[in-house]
């Protein structure tokens, strides 16, 4: 049994709003906003923040996959990011897309990554500075990553299936209704794009939201440990695969398990339910 930790495994992976407001102009730091609302950055953002869009910037525009390493190098270079830059991600929806962007940066081996605890909503609610001025940074020459860490932090459908068959931990972070197969998207969203509802056999339901407080900040380490170690049975040394519908909510849980609880081999199945629920012959459970 894993002892409930009193502090996060990697507390340095989080910054709070007070700290960030005092360090907005620090060298070697880049604030990155990533949202679900496509135009939200344009309506105002943290001074100095650049905008990275999950689809147009991080995803290949033809094949369902992430951009190639050379495109990632271009993305970083035009945003003034070097290999040594500390990227602090934040965004709407309790940091779903911020965690997704952070995970994508890790996919390309960028190591210095952090999340603004509470994200955009908390920053704005506290009346902290916002601007519409889009910053310009000198172009850098970010080296092309030699590879993507697909093997290390990403799971594909066949690996999720193997995980299911082997009875290894699979965490479904969607809402209970999606897990049960009653709906194929969050309740407040259009129910489009997936032919079958349910979950991957053997997956346990731990909605992403159980990891956050009302103000979108992360719960303390001991509470997270109760949820994921005691409640879900996760432990270090075991492969864990997380998934949701398109990989953004599971990025949030991936961040919690990897950085806040320190699990050592967590992979995000980003194909998630939009792949699994459409895949011919994929096994599905609909139990509660």
């Amino acid at each position, binding site marked *: 049994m894993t002892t409930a930790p009193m502090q996060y495994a990697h507390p340095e992976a989080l910054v709070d709003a007070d700290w960030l407001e005092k360090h907005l102009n620090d060298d070697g730091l880049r604030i990155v906003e990533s949202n*679900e*609302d*496509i*135009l*939200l950055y*344009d*309506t105002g953002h943290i001074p100095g923040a650049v905008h990275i869009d999950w*689809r*147009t910037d991080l995803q290949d525009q033809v094949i369902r996959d992430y951009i190639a390493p050379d495109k990632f190098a271009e993305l970083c270079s035009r945003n003034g990011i070097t290999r040594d830059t500390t990227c602090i991600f934040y965004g709407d929806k309790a940091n779903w897309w911020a965690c997704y962007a952070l995970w994508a940066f890790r996919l390309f081996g960028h190591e210095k990554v952090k999340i603004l605890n509470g994200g955009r909503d908390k920053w704005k609610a506290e009346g902290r500075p916002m601007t519409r001025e889009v910053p310009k940074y000198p172009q850098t020459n970010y080296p092309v990553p030699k590879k993507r860490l697909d093997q290390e932090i990403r799971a594909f459908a066949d690996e999720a299936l193997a995980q299911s068959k082997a009875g290894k931990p699979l965490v479904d972070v969607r809402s209970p209704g999606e897990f049960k197969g009653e709906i194929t998207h969050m*309740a*407040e*969203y*259009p*129910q*489009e*794009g997936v032919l079958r509802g349910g979950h991957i056999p053997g997956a346990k339901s731990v909605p992403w939201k159980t990891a956050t407080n009302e103000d979108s900040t992360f719960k303390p380490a001991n509470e997270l440990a109760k949820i994921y170690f005691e409640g879900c049975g996760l432990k270090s040394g075991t492969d864990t695969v997380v998934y949701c519908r*398109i990989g953004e909510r599971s990025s949030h849980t991936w961040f919690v398990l990897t950085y806040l609880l320190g699990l050592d081999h967590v992979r995000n199945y980003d194909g998630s339910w939009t792949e699994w629920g459409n895949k011919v012959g994929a096994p599905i459970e609909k139990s509660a």
Partner: protein
Amino acid sequence: MTETNMYPPKLEKIIHLFESLPETERRETLVSYADNARKQEPRPGEKFVLEDVRKDEECADTVGVYLQVDDEGKAHFRMTLGPEVQTLTRAMTAILCKGLDGRTPQEVLELPGDFVTRIVGTELVRVRSQTIYYVLTRIKGICKVYLDRQRMAEVA
């Protein structure tokens, strides 16, 4: 009917404006419309023939549509938006309240929806692209209810 007279003049002017803009300015203009969405809220003392306030799955928060029909049978719309409503939906609210003002409910109901992508542009159309049609659907919905009630009253 040709494309040039397919849309109400006010709306057509807005469509042409957006089509003439490069992507960056299109985004800025959408944000500017979104900023003005609150101006479409009902004003004190205004009375409406129909009010439809609800939260449904196509939108992130509650949206209210208020219909006024004047003595000449022309429709005027007011709308309220919850705080979670996305920027693009806010922009479409301001655009449609302005662009459809003064048309009859029947004209609004018959309006083809293909102009929405001409305003928003392909860059901003996403997996959840039907959300950009949400405001138009709600406005058409309240017009349909109004017309149905008119017809029922005539029959009675």
